[in-house]
């Protein structure tokens, strides 16, 4: 316990220490790059003529839409149109409790599988992926809601006990709210960050470099386009944190990427990953201000690698967690299916990861589809038949592409 306490202090301390002090204490961190000839602030605060240049309202709005959709997913009186309205919002429609969301012209669906690098010339997969997400919603309404007051069994949708909770699953034991939420982490947040806003195709588009070099701001704004693109990448990770300049102070502020950066970081094998991500965001943004695009690009690669890692760590964690819950004298089937449904979504999200210094994800769409087929193919009823060997095999295959082991991710 004391050790744990010290770890908390260490993490909390890191969040508040400046870059320069970390140089003395940490061997390996993005701050190896701190020996730069420009100023790097202690927190994510950037100004021009006294006014903040940081803005990512659109990202905050979309994360809030996701939160509200998620909180309605397990209300069995909802209709498909009500839920899908939150997914594919149209400006002015009354889809949300929050007025500002209803007035927004943003929607979740329009940014799903919509990155410049992966989908600008891949409308086919884009359409398939959007249909997958919508399919989770429609199947929840069509298959699970009618069986709300039914006990689930192999081939029968319904409810399962998981400790004090009750889980609602389809005939294969899958929980659609988990599939939706965890798939959205990849198809929206991760894809937009790694393959869109941190891409040179977006950062350096058109006259962005020349304008940034000359401090030409967008019309009516205090930021250059390049600064804003970087901030939008930041917003998909930290859009709901209370202090958006120091997001690691309350990491876990949403149910999407932010929460799972926190979870990965809480595993002692990956302690510091949250700080690595934040420091790279901050340094990269400072590099844009300093017009140092090499340092900027190096930070983008660090972010790509680490956010990809978070997805993979959580996929393996839930596969192993599900396996453990199915073992023993009194298996917790509801708990296992809940975990494996989370795993399903994180595996789905692997196709949106990005290997650093590469144009490729860690796993292609075909490979991801094969994993998901494998997960449900041990028998006729999906998770009801899943075998430990299958969960281990998928875990090992995922870990093999990264620099950590299944055991490290499983804790």
């Amino acid at each position, binding site marked *: 316990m*004391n050790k744990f*306490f010290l770890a*908390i202090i260490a993490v909390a301390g890191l969040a508040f220490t400046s870059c320069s002090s970390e140089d003395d204490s940490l061997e390996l961190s993005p701050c190896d790059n701190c020996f730069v000839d420009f100023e790097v602030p202690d927190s994510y605060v950037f100004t021009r003529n006294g006014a903040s240049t940081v803005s990512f309202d659109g990202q905050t709005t979309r994360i809030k839409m996701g939160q509200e959709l998620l909180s309605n997913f397990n209300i069995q009186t909802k209709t498909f149109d009500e839920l899908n309205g939150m997914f594919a919002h149209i400006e002015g429609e009354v889809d949300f409790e929050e007025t500002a969301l209803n007035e927004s012209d943003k929607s979740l669906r329009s940014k799903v599988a919509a990155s410049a690098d992966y989908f600008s010339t891949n409308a086919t997969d884009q359409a398939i992926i959007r249909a997958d997400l919508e399919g989770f919603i429609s199947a929840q309404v069509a298959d699970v809601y009618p069986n709300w007051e*039914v*006990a689930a069994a192999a081939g029968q949708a319904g*409810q399962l006990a998981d400790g004090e909770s009750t889980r609602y699953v389809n005939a294969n034991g899958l929980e659609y709210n988990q599939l939706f939420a965890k798939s959205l982490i990849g198809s929206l947040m991760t894809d937009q960050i790694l393959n869109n806003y941190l891409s040179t195709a977006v950062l350096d588009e058109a006259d962005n470099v020349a304008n940034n070099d000359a401090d030409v701001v967008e019309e009516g704004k205090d930021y250059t386009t390049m600064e804003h693109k970087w901030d939008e990448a930041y917003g998909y990770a930290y859009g709901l944190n209370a202090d958006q300049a120091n997001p690691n102070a309350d990491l876990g*502020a949403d149910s999407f990427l932010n929460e799972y950066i926190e979870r990965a970081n809480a595993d002692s094998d990956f302690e510091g990953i949250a700080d690595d991500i934040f420091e790279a965001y901050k340094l990269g943004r400072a590099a844009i201000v300093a017009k140092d695009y090499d340092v900027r690009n190096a930070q983008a690669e660090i972010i790509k690698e680490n956010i990809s890692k978070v997805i993979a760590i959580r996929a393996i964690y839930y596969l192993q967690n599900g396996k453990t819950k199915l073992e023993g*004298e*009194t298996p917790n089937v509801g708990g296992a299916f809940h975990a494996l449904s989370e795993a399903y979504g994180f595996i789905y999200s692997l196709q949106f990861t990005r290997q650093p210094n590469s144009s490729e994800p860690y796993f292609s769409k075909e490979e991801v589809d094969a994993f998901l087929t494998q997960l449900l193919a041990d028998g006729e009823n999906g998770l009801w038949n899943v075998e430990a060997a299958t969960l281990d095999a998928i875990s090992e295959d995922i870990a093999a592409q990264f620099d950590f082991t299944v055991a490290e991710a499983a804790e």
Partner: protein
Amino acid sequence: MKKVIGALFIMTLVWACSSDSTAEEEVMIPEENEDVSFERSAMLINWADNIIIPSYAAFTADMDGLVNSFNTFKADVNESNLDALRASWLNAYKSWQHVEMFEIGPAETVGFQLNMNIYPTDNEKIDGFVTTGSYDLSLSSNRSAKGFPALDYLLNGLGDNDTDILAFYSGNDQEAYLQYTEDVLLDMQSLTATVVSDWTNGYRDTFVANDGASSTASVDRMVNDYIFYYEKYLRAGKMGIPLGVFSGSTLPRNVEAYYEGTISNDLFLEALTAVQDFFNGKHFNSSEEGESLASYLDALNTLKNGEDLSALLNDQFNTAENMILDLSAFRSEIENNNPPTSMLLAYDEVQKAVPMLKVDMVSAMSISIDFVDADGD
């Protein structure tokens, strides 16, 4: 969810700080266990044969008595039969406090604890079920509409006084109320029968035979379940949550037996006695003691700051018990005092046993704690 995490985080800090501040504390465990002769199997046999199975047998009898009282009430709805039914309910509820902690094996399989005693009960859901007559009490989503807390509502909470309550059982909806109450009782009786029959037809031998020392051995699992029960259901459920320790504001609605209103401290004391008796290996309904966690600690010669840990734990249980004996019913303590200082002070004494069990005792026994704050989402 976030609030829970926040609270746990703060709790972790507070706990860690408090153990930090007494950094000189030492738990003395003999370096080599070669001199220790303690038979884990003898403890398992004592637990199974002298505590667990007799406690279940007594509970079964009290459940049967409760059903009998209901049948009398059903045949003749009147105030004296209602009083008798309530007395049987209280008797069985107290008896329940002696088996609630054994969430292992057959009980764990059926989710006995959560099926019998989730509170606060969902009175609106119960009203709806009575009205529609359409419900499946085996579903986990309906656990908040059955068990002892549902009976509390049905016997004590339907109206402000006995006349009003009796009116529900003799008016137009008489059949519906009697039927629902009966279904709740039969569900409890049937779950109990399943658990008890599994214990006596096989699980007892499995439990006793699994006498090793590993995370799946009976002792390790029972100790985990015991501490989990103490921390979560006794300390937090029966006191801490209604006191607002975890939420920041008091929640009187969350006391055990809220509608009856005066017995939550009696139920707590019953549960605390059961916990202490189990610790000491005291045979059910007898003063005789057998091999136990206490005798195990003594065999290991476990000292904390030079004092016998088993004696320290018994002292702590006794201190907590005495503090609670001085309290009024929990509901009135919480509703009539702001903050409910006396009850908070008693809670602190209940809490003090947690690190002694969860840190000192398990490290002496080389048992690892397997429960963590669950996923929760």
